[in-house]
């Protein structure tokens, strides 16, 4: 029964909810990026690579300028440039989108590892370069329980939730959003109605570069203040799963991201529980939880989640 008690205590601890928020934030950003790209019909598994590059670029520019905000800005610039490569290969040249995505992940892993030595003088991990300060909301932090969760959070977390609301509005309430969805569902019909299919798809993919690079920037200068090789650690793929589970909808993707965030927060908190002893040996089994959950959820729910009809299909104008 000790284990049930330990589980109960985890859920009763405000720290669990705070860690859920911090663990979900990169997933929310990245899955949002996935939504933008895929509703216009371009599969983007390069999210993992864009994240990694964003995490690296933000640290590099923070290191040289001393300003985390310039770091974030440059992360977004690099994310858009990198996403442009994906758009160029998959839209203009009608390449296989899944394979292009894996190529870009490999390039991002190579580039970030490659530049580490000339820029920071050592491989593996950079020094601490500074991080984005948490926002402390005065009245809020005094409230018991709630204050411990929301009292002092990274601005990234607020930006993530604002981004979800903004994206929902853009995709479902504006003309541009309607066009994006039309291009993803039926590019031929959209084209006949005078919608610029290529332009809209470029927009979708480039926007996914914006959000995925913010996800990466949060991992480095938002959370820890340095860059570590391969620090995105598969989160780009979990974000893809969250996007599918969230039915290609920004709000759904956010909810799914929160679920995955909660599962890793749970694994994390169980490991530091004082009631049960989690030895170094058993630790990997706890680290496995979010990935097992992802499989169960993707397999269990995917039947109900339908990708846009033209997702992954290059569009070629008949002229």
């Amino acid at each position: 029964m000790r284990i049930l008690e330990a589980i109960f205590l985890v859920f009763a601890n405000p720290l669990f909810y705070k860690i859920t928020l911090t663990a979900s934030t990169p997933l929310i950003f990245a899955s949002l990026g996935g939504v933008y790209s895929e509703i216009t019909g371009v599969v983007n598994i390069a999210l993992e690579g864009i994240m990694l590059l964003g995490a690296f670029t933000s640290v590099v520019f923070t290191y040289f300028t001393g300003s985390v905000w310039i770091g974030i800005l440059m992360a977004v610039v690099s994310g858009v440039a990198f996403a442009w490569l994906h758009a160029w290969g998959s839209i203009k040249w009608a390449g296989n989108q899944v394979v292009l995505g894996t190529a870009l992940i490999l390039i991002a892993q190579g580039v970030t590892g490659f530049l580490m030595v000339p820029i920071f003088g050592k491989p593996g991990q950079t020094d601490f370069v500074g991080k984005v300060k948490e926002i402390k909301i005065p009245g809020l932090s005094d409230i018991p329980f709630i204050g411990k969760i929301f009292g002092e959070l990274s601005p990234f977390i607020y930006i993530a939730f604002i981004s979800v609301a903004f994206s929902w509005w853009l995709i479902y309430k504006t003309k541009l959003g309607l066009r994006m969805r039309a291009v993803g569902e039926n590019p031929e019909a959209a084209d006949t109605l005078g919608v610029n299919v290529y332009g809209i798809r470029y927009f979708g993919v480039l926007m996914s570069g914006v959000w995925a690079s913010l996800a990466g920037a949060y991992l480095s200068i938002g959370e820890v203040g340095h860059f570590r090789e391969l620090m995105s650690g598969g989160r780009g793929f979990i974000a893809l799963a969250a996007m599918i589970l969230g039915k290609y909808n920004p709000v759904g993707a956010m909810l799914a991201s929160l679920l995955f965030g909660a599962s890793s927060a749970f694994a994390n908190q169980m490991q530091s529980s004082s009631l049960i002893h989690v030895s170094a040996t058993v630790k990997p089994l706890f680290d496995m939880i979010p990935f097992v959950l992802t499989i169960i959820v993707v397999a269990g729910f995917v039947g109900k989640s339908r990708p846009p009809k033209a997702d992954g299909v290059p569009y070629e104008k008949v002229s």
Partner: protein
Amino acid sequence: MNKKVSAILIPIISVLIALLISTIIILLIGKNPLVAYSALIRGSFGSKQAIADTIIKTTPLILTGLAVGFGFRAGVFNIGAEGQMVMGALIAATFAGNFGLLPPIISIPLTILIAMLVGAGYAAIAGFLKAKTGAHEVVTTIMLNWIATYFASYMVTGPLKVGSGTPKSPEIADSAQLPILMKVGAIELSAGIIIAVVAAIFMYILLNKSTTGYEIKAVGFNPYAAEYGGISVAKNIVLAMAISGALAGLAGATELMGVHHRFLGELSGGKGFDGISIALIGQNNPIGIIFAALLIGALRTGSNEMQFVGVPKHMVMIIQGIVIFLVAADRIVRTIMIRKKVEK
């Protein structure tokens, strides 16, 4: 253009373009590309030892390349070769530690069989989920990779752990180790390479001369037409994943039985991912895959030497990424080729 000619030309030109870009990058960081490339070649083919090392590195790559390439032919994208390789080797290591009483003629095939079955079973999970629920195999195999990694790290720090220091499993029985073909200094070249080449020839025959190969290719080419023609798509997806996984498991077996002789915490080291590049460069043709694996194997072996002259070995990943990019968007290369022709 002739289809067969372009199937060979496109990867070659892609590699050349990638080398051109990497030359520019090496110049940008202020190093001499000629020095870097000669170090790369010296490191991979410059001595007997280097050649043996390259062959050792190439062996599992042929098999993971075959695994991914076979999946492509059947219309499934197996990113999980990594995990299948780890699981195959891990479970085989667990059994093969106790094969001391068996003669090599039994224990070697038995260990290989276990690794292949485990790899097949692990991959079949993703195939089954795709066939039954439509869960995309890219997402499920990636998750299975992480699960395999964590599971392996649990096994070698827990139940299987021997000694102190680096987490590792006990050594497998001598009778389960692959025979050594050649010994150069500290490097032992095992019979693994023969297994890999035989597997490639076998896959070539399976794909081109058998009914199973025909059905699998039909499903990969057009699942709707195949279904209409009386071929079960669901059955073939699971089967294709299982065969793909068996090949990845075999890659794990050759590493276990021929190189390390025990399971180490980090057995795979990205070989499953390299399988994707290799399958693409080899154009999913088993014989092409042997040469593509040799290319990547040589790059990986030589990159250590390149590191000594001041070019980070990550350069090789960038080259590989650019090659995959160009092969995936092969129209870029085709356009360049056509332009060249017009100029002449």
